[in-house]
């Protein structure tokens, strides 16, 4: 990603500018981060995220300000120290603390002087790649995790102490009226009641929310069992009876909180990693100040009316109008179309498009209702609504489970009343039924599997972002891919190599070998493939943003952009790179985006797993046909606009299919949101990453197969866990209804079933997944 890219670097850029420069034809990557998020979330009303910059903050906010940085390659204790030292040497910095687990560093500045740019430069000098994180992403659920851990500890403390008291009671004298029994029960109550009140809150509030919306989720029977058993036990303690369930009640809470905490932690970790990725590829913009000087700002701080210099090979950091210069832009990330579009003064350009030709100056425009971005935001909003209605597996279980449990409990109460056992004894039995059926194992059944699956996927480089993503992924039966950047690698390769005369290719490659520009490298790679070795020559001069030249015997050889090579403007659109030499017709070099190396293998594996595979692309028919053929995809649809992609997915849905969508471009984002489940590569536009359930890293497409197989396997294992929990209920509920369950039996049964379920789920971490079906 941090490819140095001299051909396209403007002379005016600061030394570390290569970070913001991107291979011209890689159809994804650098993207402005926070601004686009904000635009999507606020429905396009307000585009500007107000974040601390050096200037804005003076006067407005006198407190010390913090900046959180994502530091990519900080991976050991030594690195951590280096990062902290480098940050502390920056002026105005009060303190700097690196977090090795999160790969982040938090920097505190003196009053209102926060400025991320010198920090990033300092870290760059120390050898670390860093990026500022948008303020809204820096908390990343850590607070919720801390809170859950505190509750977990409290429940654990209470459970251990009460269990010890209970052991004494059970092993002591069997005389019910023994004052020591009563004392121990009261002690248990004193420990249990505050613990339940504090540690049970996540369940109570979730259950209350569900009930308020007239729904039933898993937390309803859980809360009911916990509260009823606590109050019943309190009542029985006051009566001096034996039927005291404080131990079971608090142990239950403890186990449930473990499941909840693990679930939360895995998701926080995945989300934090995904945010770091987004932050690291956030774009910077060279803003032209009033006095003509250039200032480097994060793209999310661009305001309408700012004038931005965009050099060749860079992405446009914001939607805008061209104010000076003329160039060609690659809009493949936005439209999927790989042919460049020529633009001149007053033409609109979109954020994310790549400037292929000459440096231009762009004036940023406000997002109006008719911009591309807001159209896409609208499409995404409507598409996401359907997904919001998805009911999770555990909650679907609760829908039939909760009424069943409550009927059983009510039934046993009524049964014992009728048979004349008296209301107290009947109520005790009814509560024993509730405690036994309380879905401890059931509530762990899905989270335990999800934790194992997320950990497994994390190791494979797949970040699972949504809580219900795995469940939806497991239900899909048709896989739809985008072409550019998803099926393809996003690295250019020479398309018309065979049409170019061998001698010319060899001399062009000799020139190109001295450049690290992706197009030049593609020429070298093509030449190497044909001739084996390519020699380099001294004296090749590289002109940033234009091309290469070499003085040969009878004039000058040039390899570069059409303007640099003096190509007739009418022909300039034919190719991205030209080779000219005195006495020779200019030779065009065209580039294409080649398939990821394992694309065909991945498609075959998916088909073997029983998936239908389709290709939807915004690109031209020839390009799509070629890619589909190479990847072995039979159903392919070229030149699809974003709303057509959604319509296509809707059509598939109405045929009864559940669609999995993989895509990376801005134009795919609505489709990613509309699909039943979706994934995007880590190089995708951040809107797309936000819309998708999972993000996969690396150059390969295989993680998609791994993701879908893991999802299916975790669904199988969730059902296994349900079966275990259910089997245990079948065994113990009759006992409870018969009034044979003592607090001791309840406590033992509760723990063992939870442990079984968790152990079963842990198998997923190391399991070898074979083709399903």
């Amino acid at each position, binding site marked *: 990603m941090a490819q140095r890219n001299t051909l396209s670097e403007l002379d005016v850029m600061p030394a570390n500018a290569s970070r913001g420069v991107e291979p011209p034809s890689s159809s994804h990557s650098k993207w402005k981060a926070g601004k686009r998020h904000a635009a999507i979330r606020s429905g396009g009303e307000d585009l500007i995220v107000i974040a601390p910059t050096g200037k804005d903050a003076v006067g407005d906010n006198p407190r010390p300000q913090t900046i959180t940085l994502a530091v990519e390659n900080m991976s050991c204790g030594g690195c*951590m120290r280096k990062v902290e030292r480098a940050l502390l040497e920056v002026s105005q910095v009060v303190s700097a603390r690196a977090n090795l687990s999160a790969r982040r560093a938090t920097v505190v500045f003196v009053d209102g002087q926060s400025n991320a740019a010198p920090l990033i430069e300092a870290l760059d000098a120390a050898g670390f790649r860093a990026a500022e994180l948008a303020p809204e992403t820096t908390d990343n659920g850590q607070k919720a995790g801390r809170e859950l851990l*505190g509750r977990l500890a409290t429940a654990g*403390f209470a459970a251990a*102490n009460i269990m010890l008291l209970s052991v004494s009671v059970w092993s002591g004298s069997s005389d019910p009226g023994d004052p020591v029994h009563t004392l121990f029960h009261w002690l248990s109550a004193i420990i249990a009641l505050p613990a339940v009140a504090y540690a049970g809150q996540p369940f109570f509030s979730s259950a209350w929310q569900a009930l308020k919306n007239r729904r039933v989720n898993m937390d309803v029977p859980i809360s009911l069992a916990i509260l009823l058993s606590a109050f019943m036990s309190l009542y029985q303690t006051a009566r001096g009876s034996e039927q005291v369930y404080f131990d079971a009640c608090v142990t239950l809470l403890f186990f449930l909180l473990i499941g909840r905490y693990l679930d939360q932690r895995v998701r926080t970790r995945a989300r934090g990693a995904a945010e770091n990725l987004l932050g690291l590829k956030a774009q910077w913009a060279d803003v032209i100040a009033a006095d003509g000087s250039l200032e480097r700002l994060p793209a999310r701080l661009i305001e309408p009316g700012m004038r931005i210099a965009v050099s060749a090979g860079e992405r446009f950091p914001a939607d805008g109008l061209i104010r000076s210069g003329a160039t060609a832009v690659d809009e493949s990330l936005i439209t999927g179309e790989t042919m460049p579009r020529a633009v001149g003064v007053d033409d609109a350009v979109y954020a994310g498009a790549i400037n292929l030709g000459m440096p231009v100056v762009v004036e940023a425009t406000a997002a109006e209702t008719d911009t591309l971005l807001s159209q896409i935001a609208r499409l995404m909003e409507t598409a996401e609504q359907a997904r919001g209605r998805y009911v999770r597996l555990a909650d679907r279980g609760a829908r039939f489970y909760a009424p069943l449990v409550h009927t059983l409990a009510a039934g046993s109460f009524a049964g014992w009343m009728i048979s004349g056992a008296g209301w107290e004894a009947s109520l005790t039995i009814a509560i024993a039924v509730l405690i036994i059926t309380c879905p401890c194992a059931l509530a762990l059944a899905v989270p335990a599997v999800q934790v194992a699956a997320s950990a497994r996927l994390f190791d494979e480089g797949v970040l699972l972002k949504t809580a219900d993503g795995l469940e939806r992924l497991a239900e899909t039966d048709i896989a739809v891919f985008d072409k550019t950047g998803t099926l393809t690698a996003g690295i250019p390769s020479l398309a018309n190599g065979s049409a170019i005369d061998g001698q010319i290719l060899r001399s062009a490659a000799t020139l190109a070998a001295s450049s690290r520009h992706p197009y030049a490298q593609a020429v070298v790679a093509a030449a190497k493939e044909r001739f084996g070795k390519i020699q380099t020559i001294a004296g090749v001069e590289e002109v940033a943003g234009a091309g290469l030249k070499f003085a040969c015997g009878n004039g000058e050889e040039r390899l570069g952009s059409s303007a640099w090579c003096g190509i007739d403007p009418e022909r300039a659109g034919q190719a991205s790179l030209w080779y000219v030499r005195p006495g020779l017709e200019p030779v065009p070099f065209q580039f294409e985006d080649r398939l990821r190396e394992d694309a065909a293998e991945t498609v075959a594996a998916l088909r073997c797993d029983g998936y239908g595979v389709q290709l939807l692309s915004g690109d031209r028919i020839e390009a799509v046909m070629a890619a589909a053929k190479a990847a072995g995809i039979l159903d392919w649809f070229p030149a699809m606009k974003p709303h057509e992609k959604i319509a296509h997915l809707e059509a598939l849905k109405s045929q009864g299919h559940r669609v999995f969508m993989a895509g990376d471009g801005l134009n795919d984002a609505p489709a990613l949101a509309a699909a039943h489940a979706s994934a995007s590569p880590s190089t995708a536009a951040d809107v797309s990453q936000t819309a998708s359930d999972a993000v996969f890293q690396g150059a390969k497409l295989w993680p998609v197969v791994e993701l879908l197989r893991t999802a299916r396997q975790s669904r199988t294992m969730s059902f296994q866990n349900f079966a275990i929990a259910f089997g245990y209920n079948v065994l113990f509920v009759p006992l409870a209804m018969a009034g044979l369950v003592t607090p001791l039996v309840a406590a033992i049964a509760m723990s063992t079933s939870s442990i079984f379920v968790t152990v079963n789920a842990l198998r997923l971490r190391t399991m070898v997944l074979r083709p399903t079906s």
Partner: protein
Amino acid sequence: MTALAWLIPIVLFLGGLGLAAFLWSLKSGQFEDLDGAAYRILTDDEPK
């Protein structure tokens, strides 16, 4: 049996002390970076 009247409060107090210490350390952010903490113990020049 009178020993219980002493022992149980002591047990609960000591256990509660442990719990309070854990909750405090949690609140003060000591569980935020478990990987980093393992290395920090090896360095003695703590940054200001």
